[in-house]
């Protein structure tokens, strides 16, 4: 649903994928017990080891019956639309076919040649990649800094900071976007008031969204603000797994603060950092809601990222096939990152 925030959103953001990510530390801690029953030699726990096999023989169909509803549902809402996206992008589904229910004509690769030959598509792709890169770098850098900072705080300050992070994290995307739209309002927004008051510039009535660079600055602030809590809290959870004895030993051996971080702390949190970073790449590449909502549901062409470009082609120009083709290209662009993420998960024993 909401794959922003991280989000969520998603967690968004978001939201849903948030859960998969937030679980990382929980899962890494449980994999040890998880592996027990499945170990092929199983000498460690004799009697318990036999049980899964026994049930396998007795009710070989039972697990399949249990997963059947989930499989059917996922096939209907994920697999089928994906297949349909592929089909649609080789057809030409417009408004007429949608309402009459006629079969749309097949056009082969025409949608793709049109899109790839359109210079706007390349602008949009470049903008999306740049936007994603800025968001990910800012989110991960600030998130890591906050996590490291949280370790060094007195208990009550850490508590205050955690509450602030969770308050920010729990804002629904729609609400968060409304707040930022209000903060950046041209007439009565707080940002303009503060700039006018403290910098002495005449910013009253300044419209932040006239210039896309400034507009994107507001959007990036919203995205990064929404994503920091998840990154910081997850990385902090990983940091608590760093053995304090090791850090102390390194200090005694003469390592400076950076050395301790580089050779003791970083190797422990690296897997979690990479996973959160990969998720951020995917989420920020798919950012849709933040831009869409800040631009009042009708983003100008210069605010379009790939998701919005596909959306406006489909729903504004009612060329659903063009929209599908763009969505398909997005999926292909992201599939490499997704495969990398899953490989990381398998490597850390998450998929057991």
């Amino acid at each position: 649903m909401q794959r922003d925030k991280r989000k969520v959103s998603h967690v968004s953001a978001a939201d849903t994928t948030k859960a998969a990510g937030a679980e990382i530390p929980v899962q890494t801690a449980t994999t040890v017990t998880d592996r027990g029953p499945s170990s092929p030699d199983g000498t460690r726990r004799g009697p318990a080891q036999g049980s899964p096999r026994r049930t396998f023989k007795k009710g070989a169909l039972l697990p399949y019956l249990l997963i059947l509803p989930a499989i059917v549902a996922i096939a209907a809402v994920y697999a089928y639309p994906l297949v349909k996206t592929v089909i649609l992008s080789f057809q030409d589904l417009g408004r007429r076919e949608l309402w009459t229910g006629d079969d749309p004509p097949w056009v082969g690769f025409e949608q793709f040649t049109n899109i790839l030959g359109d210079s706007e598509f390349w602008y949009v792709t470049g903008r999306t990649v740049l936007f994603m890169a800025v968001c990910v770098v800012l989110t991960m850098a600030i998130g890591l800094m906050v996590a490291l900072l949280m370790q060094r705080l007195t208990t009550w300050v850490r508590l205050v900071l955690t509450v602030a992070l969770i308050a920010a994290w729990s804002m629904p995307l729609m609400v968060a976007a409304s707040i930022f739209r209000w903060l950046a309002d041209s007439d009565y927004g707080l940002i303009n008031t503060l700039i006018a008051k403290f910098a002495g510039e005449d910013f009253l009535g300044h419209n932040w969204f006239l210039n896309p660079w400034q507009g994107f600055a507001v959007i990036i602030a919203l995205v990064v603000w929404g994503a920091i809590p998840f990154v910081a809290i997850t990385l902090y959870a990983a940091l608590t797994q760093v053995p304090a004895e090791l850090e102390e030993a390194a200090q005694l051996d003469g390592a400076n603060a950076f050395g301790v971080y580089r050779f003791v702390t970083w190797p422990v949190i690296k897997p979690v950092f990479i996973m959160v970073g990969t998720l951020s790449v995917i989420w920020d590449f798919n950012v849709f809601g933040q831009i869409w909502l800040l631009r009042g549901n009708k983003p100008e062409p210069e605010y379009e990222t790939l998701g919005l470009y596909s959306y406006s082609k489909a729903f504004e120009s009612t060329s659903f096939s063009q929209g599908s083709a763009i969505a398909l290209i997005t999926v292909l662009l992201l599939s490499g990152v997704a495969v990398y993420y899953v490989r990381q998960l398998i490597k850390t024993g998450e998929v057991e």
Partner: protein
Amino acid sequence: MSASTPTTPVTKAGPAAEPQVLRPDRKKSRLHYNILGLLIAVVMAFPVYWLIVSALRPNQEIRSYDQTLWPSSITFDNFKRALNQPNFDTAVQSTLIVSLTAVIGGMVIATLAALAIGRFRFFGRKPLLVVLILVQMLPPTAMLIPIYAQLNAMGGLNEYWGLIALYLVTTLPFAVVMIRGFVVNIPVELEESAMVDGCTRFGAFMRVVFPLLAPGLAAASIFALVNAWNEYLFAYILMNDNDKYTLNVWLMTFTTERGTDYGALMAGSTLIALPVVVFFMIIQKKMATGLTSGAVKG
């Protein structure tokens, strides 16, 4: 992680606090950290503060070129205007119908699948897990167009069931993965001993596994509920009638061609965010207990 990890979270607070006593210079540096920490807390919490303050301050202060950080007086006028905005009650109704049905249905299906994945070794188990993780990464627009076209063909546009089915399934992938995490933490031996004592497999589930799984299920349902509650894009595209709008789409009606009634918008937003914040505080505790219980066991 290394084998020594389980004990570290417990001892972490100790060594960090000790040098403070041994070496007084540490105390000074910690003050800097604390100030920086409080500063970040203020920045992160500020938008939330601004939401609440704007919801509570009189409207003439909102439509003023001189925004002040503190309200001069507190009023509930904005909330009154928000509640009088047309379709508030139907929006609450729609949101509750859609999200509750979707969450309950989703949890039943997800628990069944999570039990299968957590308790049985069957062919296709790992690929299924990978698929569950991968589908969460699909861009929403890649699903929006075909789902819109399909629901249109099936007459499901502007109907609750279309949205319910969609929300139900979108909660599945993470709910299955999450509940599975709780299932593998319940020792098989408990279930087996119940069965040795004469329970059927279903009886063992109901009497042993389910009570132990309940906190995990609660956490997963809250996550699912929050996601359904926060969703706005599909709700906006798939529902056309004003009286079928969900709360998030209802919030969009505060912006008209004549401008935005920010006071009422902030009040409405506060009302919508409040349950989510409460739920988040609950889950956060659950996530923390999940973390520590996992650590003790490992």
